[in-house]
Each structure stands twice: as C-alpha cells, then as structure tokens.
C-alpha cells in the first residue's frame, strides 16, 4: 500500500469511475480507485448508445461527446478489450432474449453479431448450461431478423463439454474460469465448435471464453474454430462484463493507479467547501485517505453526499444537481464542495439507453476537471 496522500481519489468502479480514473491517471501521479465492488455495467451487455445523446443532454456538444468516446475507444484498445464502433455508427447486436439491440459501440466479440452481411448463423448452447438456450435464442432471432427483412437464418445447436470437476452442472462463468485454468478445456470447446462452424458465417455463443481472454486470445480462438464468433452476455454474473472490468483494472494499475476494491466509503471528510478525503470501511481499522480532488462515481443509489446536503434532494429524490464544472450544488446553486467532481448516471434525467454513454462522457470530463483543478490548487 502506498501513502494515503493522493492527488486524485475516484470512488466507484462503474463505467464512469473507470473512465474518469483512466483519464486522470494520464496526468496525476498519485491516483486511487476505491470501490465497494463492480458497477452495474459489468452485469449487462456493456454496449454504448450515443445516438441522440447530445440532443437530450444540453450543454454536451457533439465535440465533447466525440472526444470522450474517442478516448474510451483508445483506452479499451490499449487495455486489450477493444470496443468497436463510434459516434455515428449503428449496429444490431443480438441478446439472450433473442432480440437485437441497436448500439453505437460494443465490445468487439459482441459487435460481430450484426445480422447484416451474415447468411447462416448458428447459435451454440452447451449441454447442462441451464440459463442459456440456443434454440430459444435462434428461434427468436430468426423472427426478428425476418421482421427487419433480413435474409439471415439462425439455427440452434447444443454441444457437449467435459464435466466440471467441481460440480455436476456448468455455468458460463465456471466454463470461463476452467478455460483460463486449463488450456485443454479451451481445446475441448474448439473441438466441439469446429464441426458446427462448417458452412456457417457466424457462431453465436454464450459468454464463456476465458475471463483472462484479451483481444488476441479471442482472435486466436476464432482462427482455431475457423469462424467468426459473437459472444453474448448471459444472466449476471456474465463473462464479457467481468472480463472488461478486469482488463480495465489491470490497465489502470499498469498506468500507476492504485485499485482498492471491496471496501465501501464510510464518510466523506469535509472541511468547509472542500473534501479533504474519505474514510474507507476496511476491516479492523477504517482507513483514511486524503486527496486533493475527489471524483464521485458511486452511482445513482449512492447516499454519500446525503449527509452533507441536509435534505437538499429534489422531488425525485435521486437526480442530484451539479454545475457546469460537475461540482455538486445545493438547491440554491451554491457549490457544496469545490474539489468534488461527480460523474455517472447521477447527473440528470436522460433515457436509460444512454446510461453507458453518459457514464463515459461524464467520467472523461470529471477526470479532466479533477486534474485541471488539482493543478490550479497546486499553483495557489
């Protein structure tokens, strides 16, 4: 553990916290990301929908959005969990409900699932993996692609994998862990998929490829199977989201950030209009961490600022106010803490499909602001 005197402390390990930390980390020498646990983005498909975001979040010009998205694409690529897509792109990605979601960016293994340009797709299930049904997904995807006038055909196939050593049934997460641990298990999956891939343009599989799989490993896996592979996010805990989280964490650590997860923040230490640090709920003795700037990315259910707002919630009880500098303000518009910068889905009302896009954009901005402000304070 390094010293408890930081330039920047980020609270929350969702998409916004991770983006903010990565942004600020390029400039801050002492940065810590503290969180209770993974954010919700790791539970879903982690897709990003930017379309129409600038229109419904006034103050966010296309330029700002574009910069943040470009940063995120670069970040994930450098972290080995590349996103495909961009601000002006639209893709259809399949889901475990057999529907398509229209998105602007998606993790590469999911991005490939767009039906356009695919003639024959095979949805592959694995025997005794209960919470995924290849035939159900295939049947529904056929209906939906037909409704859109697409010629893509979907067929469901169930393959068999060796039994797990630990229990009699398999879950996608356990398969992924087994593949990480035992290369032969990954080989068994390749052997099972090869015959299925004959004549197919695309294999759609539940998210089971190793948690440690980066872009290169996935590419090698595809080459071995001989077909493009689209990996779906299954019910939580699902592999693609967790994999992304791990990759971004290790990338951040490699950039010099400290990651401290598993402990919730007990309180914010306030001194007038400045937050001097936080108390982390570490076992035995709570750990106090001091920071010049604090990025609050603890999510819309966080009650961290509540003690200091003394009833300054608005009618919805949720949507907290921030000013243009992302500083929290009370109902009279007075800044509550000059060195707290908020990001994530707490910023205002927007469509829920924009949640991840909002997280990236506000996380990027909060990261920049925290750094710039920190420099200003240092100069004073």
């Amino acid at each position, binding site marked *: 553990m390094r010293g408890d005197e930081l330039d920047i402390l980020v609270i929350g390990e969702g998409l916004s916290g991770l983006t903010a930390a990565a942004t600020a980390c390029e400039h801050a020498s002492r940065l810590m990301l503290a969180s209770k646990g993974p954010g919700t983005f790791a*539970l*879903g498909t982690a*897709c990003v929908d930017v379309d129409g975001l600038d229109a419904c979040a006034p103050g966010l010009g296309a330029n700002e959005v574009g910069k943040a998205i470009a940063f995120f694409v670069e970040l994930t690529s450098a972290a080995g969990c590349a996103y495909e897509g961009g601000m002006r792109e639209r893709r259809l990605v399949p*889901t475990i*409900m*057999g529907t398509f979601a229209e998105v602007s960016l998606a993790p590469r293994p999911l991005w490939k699932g767009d039906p356009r340009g695919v003639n024959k797709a095979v949805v592959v299930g694995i025997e005794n993996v209960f919470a995924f049904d290849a035939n159900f997904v295939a049947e529904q995807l056929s209906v939906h692609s037909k409704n859109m006038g697409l010629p893509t055909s979907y067929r469901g196939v169930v393959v068999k994998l060796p039994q797990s050593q630990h229990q009699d049934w398999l879950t996608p997460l356990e398969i992924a862990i087994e593949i990480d641990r035992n290369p032969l298990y990954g080989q068994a999956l390749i052997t099972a998929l090869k015959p299925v891939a004959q004549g197919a343009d695309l294999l759609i599989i539940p998210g089971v490829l190793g948690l440690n799989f980066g872009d290169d490993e996935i590419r090698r896996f595809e080459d071995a199977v001989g077909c493009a592979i689209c990996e779906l996010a299954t019910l939580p805990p699902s592999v693609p989201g967790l994999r992304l989280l791990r990759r971004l964490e290790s990338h951040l650590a490699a950039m010099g950030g400290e990651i401290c997860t598993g402990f919730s923040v007990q309180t914010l230490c306030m001194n007038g209009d400045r937050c001097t640090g936080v108390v982390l709920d570490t076992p035995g003795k709570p750990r106090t961490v001091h920071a010049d700037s604090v990025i609050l990315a603890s999510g819309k259910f966080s009650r961290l600022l509540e003690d200091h707002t003394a009833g300054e919630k608005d009618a919805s009880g949720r949507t907290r106010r921030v000013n243009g500098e992302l500083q929290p303000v009370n109902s009279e518009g007075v800044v509550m803490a000059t060195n707290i910068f908020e990001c994530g889905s707490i910023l205002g009302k927007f469509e*829920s499909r924009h949640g991840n896009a909002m997280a990236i954009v506000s996380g990027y901005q909060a990261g920049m602001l925290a750094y710039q402000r920190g420099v200003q304070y240092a100069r004073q």
Partner: protein
Amino acid sequence: MEKTQVVIIGGGATGAGILRDLALRGVPAVLLEKKDLANGATGRCHGLLHSGGRYVVKDADAAKECISENMILKKVAAACVHDVGGMFVHVRGDDPHYVEQWVAGCKRVGIPIKELSRDEALSLEPNLPADILKAYTCPDGHIDVFQLTLANIESAVSKGATFRAYSEVVGIEIENHRVRGVRYRDVNTGEEESLQCEIVINAAGGWAQQIAAMAGVEVPVRCDRGALLIFNHCVVKRVVNRCRKPGDADILVPCGPVCILGTSSVTVPGPENLTVPPEEVEKLLALGVELVPALAEARLLRIFTGARPLYVPKSAAGAGGREVSRNFALLDHETSEGIHGFMSIVGGKLTTYRLMAKATADLVCQKLHIDRPCMTDQVPIRDSAGAEVLKEAHKWMPAAAIEKAHRRLGSRLAMVVKAIQENPAMAEIVCECELVTRSELELVFGNSARVPVQTIGDVGRRTRLGFGPCQGTFCGYKAMLMGYRNNKWSAARASQLMATYLDDRWKGQSWVPDGKQAEQLNLSQELFGTSYNFHKRSEVSHEG
C-alpha cells in the same frame, strides 16, 4: 356434452377445499378458475393460521372456529403449515384495558396462552421494543397459502376430481328454477365450453357477486382491500401480534425466508385493479416499526394487495371493514330464491377454509342424498416421502433444499431425487431464495404434474420461485427457458409470458418507497429494458 355432478367456481382455498372434500366422499366435481389457483384473497394475504386471539374480544364465534381449525390444520396440513407459534405484545401506549379483556376472552374461548416476562419475551424475540409491557404466547402459525391450495387440488385430482385453470365462467344455465350446467371460456383460446351438472357452488370470493348475478341472485359481499409489505428476511421467529383493538399493520408473519407485515382496511368497489397509495405504505411502515423497530432497517422487497370478500348481510350494512364478522355464510339459493342446485359460500377466512368446505360439501351431499361423512379432519392433505428417499436426497441436495422440496412435493420428492440420480446436473439450484432445483422444475413442467402450469407466475405458485429478493429477474428467465425446452410454449409465447411476468414482478416493487430494493428493480429494468432491448417498464399493468 361434458357432464359432472358438481361444478365449483373459484380456485381459492375454499374452492380447492370443497373439491377435495367432495373427492374424499366420492362425489365427482370440476373446479373452474378464471386464472391460476389462489389468484384472489387466498394468494394475497398474510398466510396467518389464526389461533383466534385476534377475534376473542369482538367476535367469540369466529375465535372459536379459528382455534378449533388451527388444531386440525396443524395435524392434517402439516406440510403446508409452519407451526412457528405466535405472540401477542402489549406495546407501551396501547390500552391496558384491552389486554385484560383479551386475556379473559382467550380463557373463555379456550385459546391456550401463556404470559411471559419482559425478559422471556425479549429473549424469544429480540427485535421487539425493549420497553414492551406484556407479552403472551399463543398457537398462531404460518400457512403457505399456495401450497395449501395446491395440496388440496392435487389430493382431489389424485382421487379423480378435475381442476381447470384459466377457465372463466361466463354463464350459469338454469331451467325451470333448476341448475343445468355452466358455460365457461378458455381464457387462452377464447373458446366457450359447456359443462352439465346438478349443482353449482359459487366459491368465487371477491367475485361472488358477479357469479351470483349470472343466476339472477344477489349476494351481499363487500370487498375490503388490505395492503401487505414483504421484507427480505425474518426479523421475528414467530407471528407477532399487537395486543390491542385490531387495526392497521399490527401483525407480522414470518413466511419462510421473508416476513410479511399487514394490513390495512379500505372498502373498494371490486377485487380487481387494486393499487396501494404511497401514504398507506408510509403509515403501515410507521406502525410496523412501533411493533418491531428492526423493520426500519429491513429491506422492503415488495408490496401486494388483495381484497377480503366480507359477507355483509343487510343488518350489518353500516359497519366498517374491521367490524364485520369474519364468520362465513353458506347461502342455499334454493331456500332463499328458489333456484335448485345453486349455492354460495361467502365470508370466512383462510384459517376456516376447511370448515367452510365441509359445510358446503355437507349441503351438497344432503341435496344429492349421499350419505358419506367428511374426512378432511382425518386424512393428511399431503403424504410424506419415505426415510429411504430422504436419505438418498441428502447425497445430492443441500439439507435446506430437501426440507423445502419435501414440504412442496410430499412423496413425489422421490421423483425429483430419481431424476437427479440419473443426471446429477438436475441438482442445480435454479431459484436461490427458495432453493428450487432444476429437477423440481422439470416435474412442474412435466406430464406427471397434477396441476399443470401455463405461465411463469404459475411456476411461482407451485414452487415459490421468484418470491425472494431477485423477484424473478434471474430465476424467472430460467423458468421461461424450462417451459420452452419442455415444449410447454413456443419461443414467441415464452417471450410474451416473460414480459407479462416482468410487469407483474415490477409492479409490486414499484410501490416500495425509495430504498434498498430500488437497486434490484433498477437492475432488472436495465437488463431486460436496455441491455436485452426486450421489455421496457410500463406504467399501467394489472394482473387483476
């Protein structure tokens, strides 16, 4: 045309109880229910097996019925009753005079109570307020309402009776003042069917008026809505009652992994489209905290509401919901309106469902000149699995899962264990809160299910799947896939059912004030709404 001797309308505890009572006496009968079993008041109550204590002061007759039925049900319906015991607590500020009346009343009616010192009471129930004045134990219990109804129907079906869910009665055929049969509509296909019979029993609870009207008869039933709050764990081990004049939120019942606080009393026009205003939730919660302060910190999972179908004869028309007697009435429309073969069983309460069924079946037998005694106070409602099966089960399943599955399945636990022996993957727990195995789900969807399922919610009423903190977000999806795999429904139909199921699960959570459950609800709506682009929440959604 299809024929039977008796048609029962309404698949609540009463209707199911009548079906079984008649089956045990060898009288052929068909039960028609417009939705699934326990859709009305039965499935929307505390599940309290009353000792009678609540009624001793005001309504000694109802109290007497309760204590006598309480003893019988603990014996014959042991699989569906959790004999957790109960406690009446005199909270500071409540009328001490009422406590005296209550103690005297219990003595008079014959309800076994025992006074506890404050220390004794607090050591049994540490979450009570530290300054309680008096406490008494009593023989209350918890009834799993879905299992009770299911067990009655299963037992009847195994003896040749018929249960038809999603069959809505649309007409009663009467010729020369005599019942000839009923017409009913298959809710799924919309097709109408006729069923000839000699006797029609109206056991439709809150819908009894509508059914009676089909025969041109008026039945004075008043719907009295009550709201109930479900918390995610048991803050009490036994039923805790507030010892005062019955009022809102003065009963807390532990129900397996959750506990239920209730209730309120609001007269409503009918049993459908019920909602709970936020003020009512706040009030119930505040009162609940007075009785058990730990509720303030507990996670409120869901709020549900149902309508008590109270029997209000003209003489009592002015009385409020809590003043109307909980006694039941068996109305023979032959003696009152001259319609031979039509009767209504109204009022009463869950605890006395068996007695209501007995009285009804007695009248049916009298009319049909059948001389066979009621057996429901003797024959256990569900058999149990042998020691061998339980021993084998312990090799494959966690002990807690066996206990729950054994209660739900009785001797059919053997089938679940056998399937697991053949394919050990069948031991996978599909619903983590209620510990439902994949093998049990196979049984629910399979051909040997005595009471088939048609929706995902039906699966919950058989197994309690989706009743815990996730509220079906994860296990509901798995149940949907299971129905699809078992050719119960197509992929398109499965999707449609999933959307309806999510609406229903979300509705009860949306009434919960901002709290810990909001995160769970948000996750569910984000997953199925945004991530899977499948089903967005809608403001209007009623299960009816």
